[in-house]
């Protein structure tokens, strides 16, 4: 952020009679300096001005009028260059009035009015209150008020402001205009045109942020409706963000439509695992079922947004065929027995006879424990690359969540997957006798089932595949939503995620059983929790050590490490 380095002069304004000092310039939606607005100044003073069309990361248009406030400014300077003063010598403040009707106070829109020194903002005055009531009344003229079937209910700004600033009665007695309901705007979006308050946030988002000028307003006056071009569909990889920023329930996500009322959802901070960008997300879950991802603001990573493919990539977590029992060659077994057998097997293994195929989708902690095992056996380790199409905004080519982490920890080579052929040769020649595979189907990457018969195969995974079918030991693991840990994104930001759900059956967080294995085999000791494990790792992995990471310091938004 550029603003940090430049020192910006401050000005004093009065908010509700209280003097506050605010910077004269603040960052606008593009990150450039612009004069501070009344809305921003109030926010700094801890007073929220209600608003619909204003969004900190979108251009300001000032069309909803919700942010109307009554303000007063110093008078125009006279010939001597001085503003008019009161009798006691202080600057005289003139509250704004309608020019042709001086007894009527005049409001300004807080989102687009810049502050001037000594300005007085009457954010909670009766005049301001009355302005808000009138704006809300007019916004509700044609609003259907079908909160009981509206997916937005519970997180709807129209509901919230109506409760806080609205009036119960409407003076409007005519019929409401009825607009189309359940309009299929695109493959993932349904529009309820009646609920729209025409704030144009969705239009600005898709035009100015995504660069896909797909939406606009058609028809006139009370019949104004959001629409795509005739015959076109609203279909880019970021459409679902419009559902988040739509302050009302006009734009709804097909995926979440009528699935669950939002007030039942438990929110858990997490990270999207669809690509290496590591967008911050919020998981909404109820009774161990996940209902949605929402982007979580982190200006260093994803801002307010996330892509649609990442947002919808969560259904696998609740799949029926998730691995949920521990099996060995003889069939179903339990954690203590399986871990003891594996530890015994590994303790007797010779140096160089073990190979590890880790997954670059595992957490830093799990990879660190695997690297401990690898070091003990001088094992060859690598992961499997996963590539997809990058787009121009956030989604990158690397579809592994934690490639950077895996490389920093040293489990994966610089060219991911380049050592797989060495592992394959090792198995063929009989040198490698034990293969540990985490979260990957190696049969798809050159090490086929026939070859795998030659080794003791220890596999941990979440969903069944060809490799898990022939494993000698199969250890069911957890999805990221079912455990805690950290990922390092492609730019080297270490971010933590929290547990939202309970894993199915006997499945256990990988770090827990890996810790036990590492303890039994290498004697590793000294921590019991994920916090302890992270701090231990941060003391050993060079990049993390240089950045002086600790679990607590990561906070909600993570920290950068040097790559």
């Amino acid at each position, binding site marked *: 952020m550029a603003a940090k380095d430049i020192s910006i002069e401050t000005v004093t304004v009065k908010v509700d009679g209280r003097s506050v000092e605010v910077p004269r310039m603040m960052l606008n939606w593009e990150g450039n300096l612009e004069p501070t607005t009344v809305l921003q100044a109030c926010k700094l003073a801890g007073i929220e001005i209600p608003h619909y069309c204003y969004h900190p990361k979108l251009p300001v248009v000032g069309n909803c009028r919700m942010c109307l406030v009554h303000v007063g400014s110093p008078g125009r300077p006279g010939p001597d260059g001085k503003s008019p003063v009161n009798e006691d010598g202080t600057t005289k403040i003139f509250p704004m009035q309608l020019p042709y009707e001086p007894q009527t106070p005049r409001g300004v829109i807080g989102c687009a009015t810049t502050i001037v020194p000594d300005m007085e903002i009457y954010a909670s005055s009766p005049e301001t209150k009355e302005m808000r009531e009138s704006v809300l009344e007019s916004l509700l003229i044609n609003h259907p008020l079908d909160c009981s079937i509206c997916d937005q209910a519970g997180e709807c700004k129209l509901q919230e402001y109506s409760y806080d600033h609205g009036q119960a009665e409407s003076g409007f007695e005519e019929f*409401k205009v009825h607009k189309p309901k359940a309009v299929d705007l695109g493959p993932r979006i349904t529009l309820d045109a009646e609920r729209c308050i025409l704030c144009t946030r969705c239009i600005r988002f898709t035009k100015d942020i995504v660069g896909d000028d797909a939406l606009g307003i058609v028809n006139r006056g009370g*019949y104004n409706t959001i629409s795509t071009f005739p015959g076109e569909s609203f279909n880019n990889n970021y459409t679902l963000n419009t559902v988040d920023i739509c302050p009302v329930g006009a734009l709804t996500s097909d995926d979440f439509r009528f699935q669950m009322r939002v007030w039942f959802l438990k929110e858990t901070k997490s990270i999207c695992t669809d690509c290496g960008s590591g967008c911050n997300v919020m998981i909404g879950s109820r009774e161990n079922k996940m209902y949605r991802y929402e982007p979580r603001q982190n200006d260093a990573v994803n801002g307010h947004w996330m892509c649609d493919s990442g947002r919808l990539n969560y259904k696998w977590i609740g799949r029926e065929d998730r691995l949920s029992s521990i099996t060995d060659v003889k069939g179903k077994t339990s954690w203590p027995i399986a871990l003891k057998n594996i530890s015994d097997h590994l303790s007797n293994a010779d140096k160089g006879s073990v190979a590890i195929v880790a997954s670059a989708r595992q957490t830093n902690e799990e990879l660190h424990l695997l690297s401990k095992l690898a070091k003990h056996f001088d094992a060859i380790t690598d992961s499997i690359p996963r590539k997809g199409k990058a787009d121009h905004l956030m989604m990158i080519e690397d579809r592994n969540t934690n490639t950077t982490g895996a490389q920093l920890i040293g489990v994966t080579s610089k060219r991911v997957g380049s050592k797989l052929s060495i592992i394959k040769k090792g198995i063929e020649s009989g040198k490698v006798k034990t293969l540990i595979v985490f979260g990957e189907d190696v049969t798809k990457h050159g090490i086929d089932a026939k070859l795998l018969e030659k080794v003791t195969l220890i596999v941990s995974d979440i969903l069944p595949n060809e490799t898990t079918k022939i494993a000698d030991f199969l250890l069911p693991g957890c999805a990221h939503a079912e455990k805690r840990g950290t990922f390092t994104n492609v730019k080297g930001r270490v971010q933590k995620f929290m547990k939202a759900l309970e894993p199915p059956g006997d499945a256990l967080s990988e770090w827990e059983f890996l810790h036990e294995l590492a303890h039994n085999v290498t004697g590793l000791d000294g921590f019991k929790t994920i916090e302890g494990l992270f701090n231990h790792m941060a003391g050993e992995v060079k990049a993390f050590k240089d950045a002086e990471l600790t679990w607590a310091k990561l906070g909600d938004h993570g920290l950068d490490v040097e790559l």
Partner: protein
Amino acid sequence: MKVERAKLTWFERLYIPSILNGFKVTLRHFFSWKRSKVYGDKQSSYSAKLTMQYPEEKWPVPDGYRGAPYLVKDEDANTKCVSCQLCEFVCPPKAIRITPPGQSGEADREGAEKMPKEFDINMLRCIYCGFCQEVCPEEAIYLLKDYAITGENREELIFNKEKLLSLGGEDKRAYAHHTQDGVTEGIKKWEKKTQEAKDQPAFH
């Protein structure tokens, strides 16, 4: 602490007077010729107040009684509930369990958008508080007058949507206050709004 027992007199130690004293209330009711409100009209042919022959005979449930909550229909026999789940949220003992319809909405008629896929009330949990009736924005759930909820096992006492709708039926109370000056317009949910939308000049 030691409790000092009062020494009973000779008369008290006879016990018979005390027993008779206790019977006084019973006997007074037994020989009472006054009619009781509870037995209401059922008793008009009797001159004395006798034991009611429950369950063949049932007492008239007074108005405002809070019995079991059922789902009611509108006058066209349409489901009124829109699966807003407010009742599920407000229910103190968590007796209500609703499965939302998902993207399809499960609506079964024009103008409707959303209806519950499943709607279960566990009658063993319900405490007849009436919060669900109070919170329902669609006036779709009412505490009717059923008080004897019995069954042979627990599963039987979890009433599903079909059962709740058939037990609720078209309860007049559910739309009584929609009638004005004796004219029963009925609520006919969504019909008015659908008609209004149709009458509107197309906007092009």
